[in-house]
Each structure stands twice: as structure tokens, then as C-alpha cells.
């Protein structure tokens, strides 16, 4: 991709996932085909897990007519509503979170038992949309897994200048939801945590926040040399490269040998070469395409996939008494501070140092037994 960029074959920007590969892949593998995801700019790995091909990514970047968006948008800005259940992102950070909350809410409404997953950067957690989306998911108990990909840098601004807490996952406490902190450069840990989070979500426990600690090993985009990053910081993280670590893990666990690795490498190289040839020989879109598709003029048939009886959702079955049940009047009440261990679960490395995921907070655990808890219906 970098070579294509230097050859001016990539029309717009190129945003590298180097150093962060384990997060996109490890989280997306935790989903089932019926589940939904929405990538951010550095989650191309998740798109590959969901079944998109290298040619989709290449043609998108090269603005070709054969790309999933026919050249109307670039980079990872594409999706597939029908088969792969991928929502295309927009460049404005945070806005995917309420959208994926809505997908989780609709999935529950339709009886589909799906989980919605999306990612946000450390910088993106400063947006209002992040807060609004997570909060709505929390009160609605929506099956949303949100991964905070803490790559230490929001463009050129370090995480400490954006958020004054050690762990971004601490924010979960404010929403009354569980959270995990995971070593984002260990794909096995990422997968294990994500799998657990996805299953907890699917069982109706509400949204979960996962913070994956990692490092953006390039600038914000290809034009950015990232000279503001201390060299020692790059060196520290280079020694923790997720691909190296996974390869060592596979070798040490005798899950592959040199020959298997060579075969996989050759297969990937062959596929990439084929798709690159396809992308390079593809045409750019015809100019008249510009005016097409602003509106849906009957080109789509919109029909939900009902997995529960519709009768439950129409009168008389749907009818209710429209009153709030307020059991707690909200008076001040002294509470114990939450125990440190209950803050959030921490996964240090695969199969090592893992703690049991805690309840969202000690307060909630206590509150469940306390009759004065503020229990408001819906």
C-alpha cells in the first residue's frame, strides 16, 4: 500500500494499522456471521475477517469503479447490509457508536440475538457522540461491544493530554457497564476477552467496553512522519510487535512449523498479487455516476428479518399501562467505595494473569440486593 501511495496510485490518504493488527482481527473473530460490526479507519483487518477481500480495500483506496462504493468513497468507508453485516464508517469520530447501539436495539426488537461491535480511538472517546451512544446503550441494555483502541496518539496529541485517567476503560463505571483492559498487541488475549464480552452481550447483560492498549507505529496518515513521537517509544513498542509475538506463540506452542508458515505466506502473496493486478487494471468510474444514487428511488426493498412473532409487537399484546414504577426516591445514601479489584477485568497476556471479569461496580452488586435501589421501568 505504501508503494502504491508513493506511485500516486492511491488517490487520497493512506491510514496505517501497523502495530494495531491484533485488535481488529482478534475482536472480529469473536463475532458470528449474523453479528454486525462497523470499522474505523484502522480496522481493515476486521473487514477481512468479515469476508471482504484485499481487492475491495485496494480498489477503494485507488478510487476504482470496481470498488464496493464504485469510487464514491475511499479507504475503509464501505459496508454490506445484506450479507456481511458491516456498516460503513464516516470520518467524524464517535458517530458510529449510537448507530451500532441502534443496530443492537433493533436486533433485540426483531428477536435476532445479534451483537453489534465497533471501535473508537483514544482520541475519539472525547466526543459527545461516544458518550451519548454508550449511555443510550447502557440504559437500553443494548448488545454493543465497544473497543477503545488506545494507540497512545490522537493524530499528534498524546493520550495524557486528552484524558486524565490511566485507563480509558474506567469510563465504563460512569455508565454502569462492565469493562476490560487487554494487551492489544496479544491477539490471543484480545480474542479471549472479546469472545467473553460478545457472549455476555448476547445473553442480554448490556453493553461492554474493552480498552486495548497498543501503539500506532506510523503517523496519523502516510503524509505524517510522526516526529512528535519519542524514538524510545517506537522502540519499546517495536519489541512488542503483535505479528512477531503471535508467530512466536504459534512456534512455541507447536501450532505451525516453518513449512506451514511458508505455505501461508505464499498463499497471501499470491492472493495480494492477483487482487493488485485486478485493482490496477480496473477502470475509474464514469463521470456521469456522480449524479446517481443520492436517493433510493425504489432500488432497495426494505423488510426486516423477523425472528420473533410480530403479534407480540402489535395490539392487544403490545399494550401496556404507561406508568413508571419508581421504587427509590433518589435520596442521598452513604455507600462504600467500590473495591479496587472490581474496577474492571485486566488481561495481561494469553493464559496468564487473567482475572475474572467483575461486576460493573461494587455498587451495582450491592444494589441488586438492596430494595431501595432506583429501579425505573424501561
Amino acid at each position, binding site marked *: 500500500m505504501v508503494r502504491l501511495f508513493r506511485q500516486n496510485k492511491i488517490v487520497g490518504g493512506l491510514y496505517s494499522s501497523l502495530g494495531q493488527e491484533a485488535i481488529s482481527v482478534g475482536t472480529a473473530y469473536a463475532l458470528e456471521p449474523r453479528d454486525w460490526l462497523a470499522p474505523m479507519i484502522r480496522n481493515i483487518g476486521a473487514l477481512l475477517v468479515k469476508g471482504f477481500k484485499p481487492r475491495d480495500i485496494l480498489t477503494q483506496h485507488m478510487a476504482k469503479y470496481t470498488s464496493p462504493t464504485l469510487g464514491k468513497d475511499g479507504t475503509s468507508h464501505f459496508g454490506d447490509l445484506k450479507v456481511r453485516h458491516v456498516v460503513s464508517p464516516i470520518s467524524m469520530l464517535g458517530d458510529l457508536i*449510537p448507530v451500532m447501539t441502534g443496530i443492537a436495539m433493533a436486533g433485540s426488537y*426483531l428477536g435476532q440475538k445479534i451483537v453489534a461491535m465497533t471501535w473508537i480511538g483514544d482520541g475519539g472517546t472525547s466526543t459527545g457522540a461516544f458518550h451519548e451512544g454508550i449511555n443510550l446503550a447502557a440504559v437500553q441494555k443494548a448488545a454493543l461491544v465497544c473497543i477503545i483502541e488506545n494507540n497512545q496518539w490522537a493524530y499528534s496529541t498524546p493520550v495524557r493530554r486528552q484524558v486524565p485517567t490511566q485507563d480509558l476503560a474506567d469510563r465504563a463505571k460512569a455508565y454502569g457497564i462492565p469493562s476490560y483492559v487487554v494487551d492489544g498487541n496479544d491477539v490471543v488475549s484480545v480474542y479471549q476477552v472479546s469472545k467473553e464480552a460478545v457472549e455476555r452481550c448476547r445473553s442480554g447483560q448490556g453493553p461492554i467496553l474493552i480498552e486495548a492498549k497498543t501503539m500506532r507505529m506510523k503517523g496519523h496518515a502516510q503524509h505524517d512522519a510522526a516526529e512528535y513521537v519519542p524514538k524510545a517509544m517506537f522502540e519499546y513498542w517495536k519489541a512488542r510487535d503483535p505479528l512477531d509475538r503471535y508467530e512466536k506463540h504459534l512456534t512455541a506452542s507447536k501450532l505451525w512449523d516453518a513449512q506451514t508458515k511458508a505455505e501461508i505466506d505464499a498463499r497471501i502473496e499470491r492472493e495480494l498479487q492477483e487482487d493488485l493486478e485486478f485493482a490496477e487494471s480496473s477502470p475509474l468510474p464514469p463521470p456521469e455516476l456522480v449524479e446517481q444514487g443520492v436517493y433510493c428511488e425504489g432500488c*432497495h426493498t426494505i423488510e426486516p428479518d423477523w425472528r420473533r412473532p410480530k403479534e407480540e409487537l*402489535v395490539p392487544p399484546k403490545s399494550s401496556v399501562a404507561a406508568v413508571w414504577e419508581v421504587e427509590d426516591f433518589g435520596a442521598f445514601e452513604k455507600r462504600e467505595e467500590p473495591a479496587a479489584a472490581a474496577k474492571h477485568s485486566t488481561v495481561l497476556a494469553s493464559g496468564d494473569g487473567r482475572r475474572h471479569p467483575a461486576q460493573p461496580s461494587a455498587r451495582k452488586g450491592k444494589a441488586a440486593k438492596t430494595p431501595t435501589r432506583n429501579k425505573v421501568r424501561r
Partner: protein
Amino acid sequence: MLEAIRQALFEEMERDPAVVLLGEDVGVYGGAFKVTAGLLERFGWERVIDTPISETAIVGAAVGMSYLGLRPVAEMQFIDFIACCFNQLTNFVAKSHYRWGAPVPIVVRGPSGGGVHGGPFHSANPEMYFVHTPGLKVVYPSTAYDAKGLLKSAIRDNNPVLFFEHKFLYRRVKEELPSGDYTVPLGKAVVRREGRDLTIVSYAAMMHTSMEAAEVLAKEGIEAEVIDLRTLLPLDRETLLASVKKTNKILVVHEDTRTGGIAGEIAALVCEGAFEDLDGPVLRVTSLDTPVPYSPPLEERFLPDVQRVAAAARDLARY
């Protein structure tokens, strides 16, 4: 008109369980203006959703629901608060179908407009921000019949529709509505009154002001044709141009502020499509280029009234 909107929601929810409502205080309370009163009792907690005060999350969640085939109707408690979800509407919603072929069949509706002393944050007419956004549809009815029929069309449309409800008309416009299902098509203006001397184009509350002005003018022997736009995006060029070709003069009246209001767009399209037919300048009567003020004498000066519309029409008729 309020009851007509409530009926449209009720009937669409009866017809199709894919139609759900969400917004602030829309459920137990029935909405700040009681537009959604009784809907929670009938359709239940899953279909009438009281949300946190989070306009971005309300619209965002509606988008997500629509991607799974639902047809959510999101309420802005006052349409002024649509500014809080401007990004979601203009960047996520409006571009979705164009960029990646994902239709967004949602309706965002809410009470708009002045004349009720709501002040700078409860009186706005923010329609033109969205008329300038390809991918959205913008509807602004003036009658109860149209409000019901247009809202039904908006819910059944595969595109995102912003549905403005003029709160001054909520309890002032009263009509007998036909029983049974009917719709009014989006994108079609209607001639409210035939005339030969000039065309007055308007919508929402100002349509009524324009009709009153036309009555005054008729007594003076000036026959004004009054067009109600009903839908601002897409704009019904054909009806506008046909009327100008007949009357040769056009006056645009809107409650939105002057600069960047739809009068400018209509002036341009008339010049492009019917310049040879014009016997006078394209004129406009609009609100002033200020925020909507609170105190009654200020707001009365701010808003167009029958006298100002009639005066401009007389000037134009003299050409």
C-alpha cells in the same frame, strides 16, 4: 393539525410493526406537545422509546434501526434541538445511500416555528440547513390533511425525511379529515388559490398569512395565485414554473430568515426556467435576519404579517 399527526403515527404503527418511535419524553408523558399521547399504552415499551437527552444518539440509533429494516420516527422535542444532531444528519444520514448504497428510511420530526413567544431557542425554522443537504427530504405542511398524508408518505419513503410541524398551527388549524388511509405525495406543491395577477409562494404558517393577504388583495381587484410548497426538498419546479408562466409575477413568503432562505433558491430557478415570462422582479417577504426574539412586540416586528405580504403584492402587481 396535532391530532392529524398523532393519527398518522397511530395508523402507521397499526399497519406496520417495523414503525417505532423514539425521543425525549415521547412515551409515558406523550411528548412535550402530546403528539405521541396514548401511543405507549397501545404499542408498548419496545415501540415507543423514551430516550436520554441525546439528540445525536436518538438519530444515530434510528439510523442503526433502519439498517435492520425498521422505520423509526425520531422526535426532536423542539426542532431547534436538531442542531445538536446536525453532524449525524448531514454526514451520516444524508450520505449513506450515495456513499455505500445503504438506505436510511427514518423520519425526524418536531415542532418548529415562531409566533408563540418561544424565544431564540424554541421558535426556529432551521429547514434551510437541510434543504442544502443532498440526500435528505424536507417536508413542512400547512394543513391537517397534508400533515397526516405527508407524514404517512414520509414513514413509507425509503429515504430520510425531516418533517417540520409548525407549532403555531398545532391547535389552530382544524379540519374534518376523511376516514381511512390516504397519503399525500412528497415533492409535490399544491395551488391553494387560483389567480391571474401574481403568484404568492409559501409554506407552513405563512401559507395561511398568504391566503389572508390574497383575500385582502381580491377586494382590491388583485387576483393572487397562492402555492403551498409542502415539500421543500425536492422542490416542485414544475408547479412553480407553470404558475409563473401564467401570472408572470412571483412573490415568495417565508417565516425563515431572509438571507439564505428558500426565496433565493426560488428566485434563481424562476430566472433560469421562466425569465422571459417575468413582468416584474422576484420579491420576497420574510422574517428579519436576526435570531427569533422573545418579547411580543419584537417577535411581531420580526415575523411577516398580512399587511407586509399584501403591500409587497400590491407593489409587484403594479409592474
